[in-house]
């Protein structure tokens, strides 16, 4: 087997993100992770919705689906159910995944499909130029909350725990090696891997900046990822110290493993001619 080189994943087109945007680093971490796992680009599908982060599939040389706002998860679910041999990634922003598409994310987690979910979390709406997002902090002043947000932000990790996700982690764009390692672990994990990623928006979020996170984030080392309760309380740690790393991991059959229809081969590889409907039709006589 030939080893994949990082360059295999480079596209001719260049990202259109702002210079210095956290997305560049996440893209780089993803490419590193795919290279490290020696994945064939043709066996990878990256699905996205709408938003700054959702441009990502265009800048990684794999199969991709740039869908509509909030719907990356159902599109990815369809891809995975039809061809579970493929490595399926979802790339979604905080507005896309934790706002308009949240319903799908919760259900995907409880279903435990073998999908790796990268939640690019910059706590702001970027592409629409600076409105509040589901993860904006209380008090955050944005163009849609000029007097400060009066809502409590969503906690994606706690939500993942409550929804039955089997792999829950948090990365930081500013620590790409650590993030790449999390993506590898999440992809190798059998089941739904939720990776929330701090992705500073250098243009529109002047609070949650690289500097903000550099000062606060620390890597979880002593934490036991099998400990659900501790993972839950850790997920609420916010302020001077903010943990990143693997919060929780558990084993549960994936959705595809529980489907007898998929035991032998993925749906897409099954023969579709010569289906015999006659015996079931007999019941209508």
């Amino acid at each position, binding site marked *: 087997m030939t080893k994949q080189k990082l360059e295999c994943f480079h596209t001719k087109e260049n990202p259109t993100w702002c210079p210095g945007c956290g997305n560049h680093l996440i893209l780089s971490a993803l490419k590193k992770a795919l290279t490290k796992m020696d994945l064939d680009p043709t*066996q990878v599908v990256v699905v996205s919705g709408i938003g700054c982060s959702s441009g990502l599939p*265009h800048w990684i040389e794999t199969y991709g*689906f*740039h869908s509509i706002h909030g719907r990356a998860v*159902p599109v990815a679910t369809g891809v995975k159910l039809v*061809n579970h041999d*493929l490595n399926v990634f979802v790339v979604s922003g905080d507005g896309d995944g934790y706002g308009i598409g949240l319903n*799908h994310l919760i259900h995907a987690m409880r279903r435990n499909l073998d999908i790796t979910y990268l939640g690019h979390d910059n706590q702001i709406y970027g592409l629409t130029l600076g409105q509040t997002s589901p993860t904006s902090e209380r008090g955050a002043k944005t163009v849609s909350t000029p007097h400060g947000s009066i809502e409590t932000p969503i906690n994606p990790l706690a939500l993942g725990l409550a929804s039955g996700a089997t792999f829950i982690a948090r990365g930081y764009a500013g620590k790409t090696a650590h993030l790449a390692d999390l993506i590898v672990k999440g992809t190798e994990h059998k089941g739904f891997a939720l990776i929330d990623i701090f992705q500073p928006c250098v243009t529109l979020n002047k609070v949650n900046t690289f500097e903000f996170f550099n000062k606060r984030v620390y890597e979880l080392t002593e934490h036991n990822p099998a400990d659900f309760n501790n993972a839950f309380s850790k997920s609420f740690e916010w302020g001077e110290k903010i943990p990143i790393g693997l919060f929780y991991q558990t084993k549960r059959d994936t959705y595809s493993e529980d489907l007898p229809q998929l035991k032998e081969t993925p749906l897409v590889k099954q023969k579709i*001619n010569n289906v015999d409907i006659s015996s079931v039709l007999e019941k209508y006589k």
Partner: protein
Amino acid sequence: MNDFVNWKIGGEAGYGILSVGILFGKFCTRNGLYAFYSSEFPSLVRGGHNTVQLMAKKNPVLSQHSEINLLIALNKETIEKHLHELSPDAAIIYDSKEFDLKGIKLKKSLVLIDIPLTEIAEKHGKKIMRNTVALGASISLLELEFNELEGLIKEAFSGKKDALIPINIAAAKEGFNFIKNRNIKFNYKLKAQKKKNNIFINANDAFSFGAVKSGLKFVAEYPMTPSSSILSFMAANELNYDIVVKQTEDEIAAINMIIGGAFAGARSLTATSGGGFSLMVEGLGLAGMTETPIVVVESQRPGPSTGLPTMTEQGDLSFVLTASQGEFPRLIMAPGDVQEAFETGLYSFNYAEKYQLPVIVLLDKYVSEGNTTTKMFDSNKFKIERGKLLSKAPKNYLRYAFTKDGVSPRVLPGTLGTVYKANGDEHTEKGVSDEEEANRIEMMNKRMRKLEYLKKEIPEPKLYGDKNAKTTLICWGSTKGIALEAIEELKKHKIKANLLHYNFIFPFKEKTLLKLLKKSKKVLLVENNKTAQLGKLIAEETGIKIKNKFLKYTGRQFYPQEIVKKVRSLK
């Protein structure tokens, strides 16, 4: 003596009204007869007024009929509500121990049959078995043999509820004998005919069989009346045919999942009604833009909003014609009966894959839940056609390559030698987002060009009856059988009429229509909606406004007799 019967049973929901109707329809079918079933019930699990109507005769029945000849009244309300529908010589089966007929004005000519339905039911089991007793009585009154009913009861309860078999047979038999011993004069008799290779089925199941036969592999659906039985059919058969069936969190998930599934290469289906389709609309555009082949069943019920959730209407044609922002090609089919529903199931995926576009199948409650006796489905001529689906990627492969017919060769994710992006943004041939004018024009033209070729491939609307008739009916979808029966009945009034039925609605085929309009003196558009939506499409496509319209939007489909009356009144 009449050799048909229009039978109706009424009572509260939870009395087994719908199930006994299906049982009677199957019974007729097994006796070589033809039956047409239609039901009316409120949106309740229990309570409220439920009815089933079943027309049975020795020749094919194509629609519901208005005049009832045999009424089974499980409560007083049934008689009060449906008295005006009865033929003068109709019979009413009721139980005087449950209610009296005080205050109801009954014509002398009616045949009143008082049967202790409850007493018999409770003697053998529970009160709920009154429906079975009444069915036994009905077939006896119609002078049919009991045998087939015994077999049907066995099949209905076998496996899960074996203990119910003997008691139901006994109850039915006692109802049967009760009539047999009484020598009641009734003007409607059925005679068992030679056994035929017929089935008793509705359009949801018929479509589902077609779809399964055509190689369906993935279904994502959120339940909504009257499409829900497609989900339960598929779930019941998922292991028979190795289909993955996913009940989703909402209709938005359903359509986007099948877009993902179709992109990955499986024939993928969703089904819903108008409300759910409203939620799917953005996804429909995504399928259009990414040229992903999907099939969406939209079984209509009267809107707007929740509307009349368990009733029927053809009110969503205009909606599905332009649903979603922007312009993209789509195919709209509207099968008129169970045979056409089966064919639609069979061929819709061929069209979707050959032209890489969304196919919308319009059904409605009337056909989705209207069981009909029909000949066994035949799919011998059917061949799976997947269009330009390649198993290997050519050199310099471009997913959205410009081609003469607008259809670009497709490879599936996982295919070696290339990668590409499916893209909901306007894109280049490669799939890269692009906002340049020149590319936009080319891409729009490429996608819309598919319609020209698709239009050539789909059939013209079908003309039924004498092609030189001076009166022409025009309709679409589920109104077909009703209009056909109306044409037959018009002959009795010395009126020659024909019918032009649109099964494939869009892209719109106008050739047959234009020819016909030149010949016909009286043209009547018959639609089960308020604003003549096919009429609007005809006007848009041909510039011709059809003056005479017969529109019904009561939540019920037409009766042939209504159409006959309307045609006779045309000046």
